């Protein structure tokens, strides 16, 4: 059965929450992974942490709300997905705990050993989710083995198929590139130089992987039930946006960041367009888990819609305001007012 309007709305809202999470936490993960590569001294690493310090905690809430919204709107989806992907999710949770505690406690100790250990916690804790979120979503859309009760009956290693691994490597590298592009807007001096130097190979690698993943996805669709037009268009646009990134890199750093964010949103939109109207695709023996079968009642969805309509604009407003408050570049002696990412949007970069 086709999903109802409210079910479609909630699928869209959950997709938006995930997209927001990937764009926002994407650069947190990217900066986290680059922490020791780009920051050579304690002060440089402190500055790198400060580029996302005021916002990462709020960024992570997008994931928590995506989880909560899935529980409320599509309980069967929440149940099947999280119990089915038990071990990968466990790894993600451990990684997020390490990353979170690392970011918070890094500066609260006195020794180099203390800081070095937490730096590795941040690097590993950023890399694991960056990799596994791609693996997870590629699997959800490609399909996994579900039985008639919509229980996952595959194994942990079934999730590590080549297509899903390509998706994982894509998100890993795309988030790295995204983080480097973010740093080009948020740093000064030597950090900006290093971010610029590493952004180039990273954005090129991300673009190449994006094109490969888009091609693999469209081929997979052609191989299965046929190419889905909306999905394919979104995916091709994702590839184009990713390729535009390195092209714009030298002159328009803000555009590169925008291209990176856009390609991340578009590639997932392409996947979700293919997934719709299902919540999870099945490779058998049971049928796909449709959104309609997974959904809560219209009453619950209606209540949650009212709550979302009232609160989401407020959340966007104050989160946006936070980004405005902390718009200034960090790490340079000339970190003065006016030198913000917004200025970079129009002007040629100084670096």
């Amino acid at each position: 059965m086709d999903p109802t309007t409210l079910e479609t709305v909630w699928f869209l809202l959950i997709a938006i929450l995930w997209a927001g999470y990937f764009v926002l936490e994407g650069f947190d993960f990217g900066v986290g992974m680059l922490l020791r590569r780009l920051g050579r001294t304690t002060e440089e690493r402190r500055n790198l942490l400060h580029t996302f310090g005021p916002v990462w905690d709020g960024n992570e809430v997008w994931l928590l709300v995506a989880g909560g919204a899935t529980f409320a709107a599509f309980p069967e989806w929440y149940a099947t997905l999280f119990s089915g992907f038990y071990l990968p999710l466990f790894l993600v949770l451990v990684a997020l705990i390490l990353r979170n505690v690392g970011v918070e406690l890094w500066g609260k100790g006195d020794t180099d050993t203390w800081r070095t250990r937490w730096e590795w916690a941040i690097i590993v804790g950023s890399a694991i989710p960056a990799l596994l979120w791609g693996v997870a979503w590629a699997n959800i859309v490609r399909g996994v083995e579900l039985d008639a009760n919509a229980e996952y009956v595959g194994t942990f290693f079934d999730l590590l198929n080549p297509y899903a691994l390509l998706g994982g490597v894509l998100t890993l590298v795309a988030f790295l590139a995204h983080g480097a592009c973010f740093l080009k807007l948020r740093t000064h001096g030597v950090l900006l130089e290093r971010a610029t130097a590493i952004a180039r190979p990273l954005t090129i690698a991300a673009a190449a992987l994006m094109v490969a993943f888009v091609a693999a996805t469209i081929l997979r669709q052609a191989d299965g039930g046929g190419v889905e037009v909306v999905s394919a268009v979104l995916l091709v646009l994702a590839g184009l946006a990713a390729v535009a990134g390195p092209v714009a890199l030298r002159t328009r750093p803000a555009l590169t960041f925008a291209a990176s964010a856009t390609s991340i949103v578009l590639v997932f939109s392409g996947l979700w367009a293919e997934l719709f109207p299902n919540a999870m695709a099945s490779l058998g023996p049971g049928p796909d888990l449709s959104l309609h079968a997974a959904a809560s009642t219209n009453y619950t969805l209606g209540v949650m819609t009212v709550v979302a309509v009232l609160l989401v604009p407020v959340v966007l407003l104050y989160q946006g305001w936070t980004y405005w408050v902390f718009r200034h570049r960090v790490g340079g002696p000339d970190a003065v007012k006016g030198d913000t990412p917004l200025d970079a949007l129009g002007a040629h970069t100084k670096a």
Partner: protein
Amino acid sequence: MDVIDLARLQFGITTVYHFIFVPVSIGLAAWVAICQTAAYRTGKEQWDRAARFWGKLFLISFALGVATGIVQEFQFGMGWSDYSRFVGDVFGAPLAMEGLAAFFVESTFLGLWIFGRDRLSPKLHLFSIWMVAIGTMLSAYFILAANAWMQQPVGYELDEAAGRAEMTSILEVLTNTTALWAFPHTIFAAWATAAMVVVAVAAWHIRRGDHADIMRPALRIGLGVACAATILTATVGHFQAMHLVDVQPMKMAAAEALFETKEPAPFSLFATGDWTPNPERTNVDIQIPKLLSFLAQGDFTSEVKGINELNAEYRAKYGPGEYAPIVGLTYWTFRIMVGAGTVLILLTGFALWRLRRRGRLDPRLLGLLLPAALLPQIANATGWIFTEMGRQPWVVQGLLKTEDAVSPTLTTGEILTSLIGFTVLYGVLAVIGGALFARLAGRGPDPGGDDRGPGEPATAPTPEPTLVY
């Protein structure tokens, strides 16, 4: 142990551990906000240093609370998928609302507060910490409303065909009487918990004779809040227990080891029974006549139903089976909770009285106040274990049994991996977090004049940790 026992153990360990930090964060957020308000109003620099000092300790607790809280958002689906399928239509709503209404507020304004000292006006900066404090309390309400539904399902109907509960009234779910009692009980307990953290740190410094300008008011206010909040927690708890007799009579009967229905019912001071989940009778039971009738019903003559009669009633209603929780555990966790609270009231009351009479506390009493910070933690942990274990065999009272709630595909290997993984990780974090907390608490407030902003590099060779990273 089979999968379900391991899954329960994991949920218990991760949740009790998470709840070490929750009340400390709820209470300290409010305390930091109060210190900063005092600084803003009076302009006294000592309150500003106090806000930053307690703020540092608050941040350690908050960091660990958030990190371990992420697990909570996902582990219903991971370990308890059949539970999630059954309750999601009702239970998911308050959880999602918590995210939208509270999590975003807490974490966004916390970032603004940590890094915003130099970027925001003092007023907006103060506003930020109040938003964090309010956010933590909102969070508590939604979670308690969700939990209350497991104790007392309201505002739903059963869809037999779909095999799930479906929400019919969000208002009833959010104004569940169990939640209305649990919320003040939990918040007062959180204030007492955080106040005792403040008292312990202050007592340590006063005993060493340093930072008197900040620690003396902290000790006085902390003792006052801890004493008053614990009395309020107990008072609300009493009415909560009367409410329990109505909605979860089995839990209350087990809490009192009352096996046979009595009219009037005596209150048990000390009871033992055979070493089995439900011994069906006590071996030793020292009682105060009629007191339970009074506590449960408000007079000295009423009947209070016993475990054995309730068990028979439930068997007639729900079919054969054991409907009593582990009686000894329920009985003793309830008593440890009440006992820890009582000791806390007496100790803080005595310290307040001495402080008022002599103007200071002697070193021995100050030394005693340090380990006393564990009393609220003991009461919190046993209180939750009582609440959750006392509801067994149900996961949702009268609707869904715990044995039917676990993820059917969960393997022993998976649950063992995560159980060991989380336990080891949490253990390591407890050691590191505890040591860091003790070090920063022991170091005391900054000597003043430190206005280092987020972007500015430290000039001192060993930089004094500030709120920013």
